[in-house]
């Protein structure tokens, strides 16, 4: 573990592959920004890679990084645990961040526990929310101010636990993909670049990558906390982009009704309902979906249903919690605006003592 250093940065591990930044770190930058502002410290992005990673520095800045820690080395070109673990642990020892966040991707969930073990610090896996709060250990009079509350489902999702790691810093967490609001980029934000030497001369990477293959990612509708779905009422394939935009900004997955597939707006992998994927997210937003029985059967266990439809008589309104009658090309941009504004308000307010 490292010493508790209250001026330490909030860090986000900027997962990339061949110069392409993953979604997970971009989502984390939004949350990381909030946490850093609340703590009054800098947000740092940690970028490890082979050569040519430098052009990602400005992108990370645009998403909110004050600093980018860049480590380039041929041994970091293709991810494997040992060299990444060593570099991350060295960086933590050198710069003493107070919080280090990783996406709960296959890479993040391989690397984060390895680094935590090397540092002897705590780690909470697959968090769905992060907040700053004060913590008083049981049977203790001491209060630890402004520690990271790491909120995550446990026991097969039957309970939500708040985990803290108030002593053995850094406070580390992996964060589930698609649950944090993606920040809007601001190209004017130029980060400070900090280059760091990997120091991997003595290390022989123990894995030989014989072959690797990218695969089309099938949408994880069942695992998604929020699903935004479009139907025939979306109107055109062009308009369907609005569904993607709303889903991205809210950290949700995209789904659709049978009619949207038949009209060629989207692939059938995204179909929700009796013949598609049955889902039960925390929030379901139905856009231009009338709410036929076979669709209803696949989503009625959603905890909250929001319906947007131009037809006030659409059956979907009879089982939606919240409804807006209107043209979705007007409603969705307004929602995106409201969510972005709401996300900013959240970062200032204190929801939890």
């Amino acid at each position, binding site marked *: 573990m490292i010493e508790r250093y209250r001026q330490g940065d909030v860090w986000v591990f900027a997962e990339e592959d061949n110069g392409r930044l993953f979604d997970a770190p971009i989502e984390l930058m939004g949350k990381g920004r909030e946490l850093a502002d609340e703590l009054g410290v800098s947000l740092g992005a940690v970028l490890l890679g082979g050569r040519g990673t430098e052009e990602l520095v400005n992108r990370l800045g645009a998403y909110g990084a004050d600093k980018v820690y860049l480590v380039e080395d041929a041994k970091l070109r293709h991810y494997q645990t040992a060299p990444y673990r060593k570099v991350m642990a060295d960086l933590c020892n050198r710069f003493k961040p107070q919080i280090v966040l990783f996406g709960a991707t296959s890479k993040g969930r*391989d690397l984060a526990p390895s680094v935590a073990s090397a540092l002897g610090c705590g*780690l909470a*896996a697959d968090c769905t929310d992060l907040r700053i709060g004060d913590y008083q250990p049981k049977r203790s009079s001491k209060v630890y101010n402004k520690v990271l509350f790491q909120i995550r489902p446990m026991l097969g999702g039957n309970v939500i636990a708040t985990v803290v790691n108030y002593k053995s810093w850094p406070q580390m967490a992996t964060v589930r993909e698609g649950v944090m609001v993606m920040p809007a980029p601001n190209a004017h934000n130029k980060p400070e670049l900090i280059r760091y030497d990997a120091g991997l001369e003595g290390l022989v990477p123990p894995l030989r*990558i014989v072959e690797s293959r990218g695969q089309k990612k099938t949408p994880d509708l069942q695992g998604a906390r929020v699903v935004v779905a479009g139907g025939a009422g979306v109107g055109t394939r062009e308009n369907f982009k609005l569904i993607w935009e709303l889903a991205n900004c809210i950290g949700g997955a995209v789904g659709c009704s049978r009619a949207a597939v038949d009209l060629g707006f989207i692939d059938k992998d995204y179909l929700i309902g009796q013949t598609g994927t049955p889902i039960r997210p925390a929030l379901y937003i139905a856009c231009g979906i009338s709410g036929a029985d076979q669709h209803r059967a696949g989503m009625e266990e959603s905890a909250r249903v929001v319906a947007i439809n131009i037809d006030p008589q659409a059956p979907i309104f009879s089982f939606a919690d919240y409804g807006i009658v209107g043209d979705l090309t007007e*409603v969705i941009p307004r929602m995106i605006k409201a969510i972005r504004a709401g996300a900013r308000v959240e970062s200032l307010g204190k929801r939890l003592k």
Partner: protein
Amino acid sequence: MNYHSVVCVKQVPDTNRITGNPMKDDGTVNRAALEAIANPDDMHALEAALEIRDHHGGSVSVITMGPPRAAEVLREALYRGADDGYLISDERAAGSDTLATSYVLACAVKKLSPDMVFCGRRTIDGDNAQVGPQLAEKTELTLITYVDSLVAVEDRTVTARRDLDTGWELVAAELPVLMTVAHTANTPRPPSVKRMMKLKKARSRPEIVEKLMRDADWPDKTSLKTAVDRRAAELEKHGLLIQSWTLDDIGAKPGRCGLRGSPTKIHRVQSIVFTAAEQKRFRNDEAGVSELIGLLIKDHTIR
């Protein structure tokens, strides 16, 4: 060429069949109230090890850490074909998080110095998927996570396919290695009836202690110990004594184990209940949409 493998298994509450309060006040799992099963992924880890042994020769040892009853998962593994089992049971290890657990397991693994260690990819109770990577770091074994196909073991080199969220990759590494195994890797063999008949009476020392204390009142520790020793010797004669270790047996420092050695603490636990919302319509203008989003943020539907 034969290989010695160690498989780490865990007894977990069956999270699909939870009744009553699953957590205790101190934030640890209330094991007493839950039906206990062998963690599903661990049985795939065991199968991977057994297949290597069946093909190349060698042996498969299974280790677990937990209360005396955790030996049930060792018997389960023995029925399926494991050669021997080790129960690490020590009150000072209770409440360990993944860092402390991986430390205890590392002490045990070092004692066995295997060629390969297998862990399930994740457990269904904590779902951290952290103990495997942390155990690899502490034992300095080469880590191969998310193995969905063990392609070959030849000349002390293992080749395995890893299932990643971006696709897959085929990797090769020299032994010793630690692999975390996904449920897609194989189909675990069922327990063998023959082995079950032979081994169903196998017990570990902590279980003997527990049973004897339940069955009778003991005037002093010495007489209890004598009875336990006698029973253990009897079982050992018939090859039915499951090895057990305390923290001292594996040289684990108590300060790094249990609640004391665990940096993560459970601050609080909430069960998930979504209250039914009243049906409500909002106007299609900025104020209406903001009110809707505000409500969703307020009740934490949007975070």
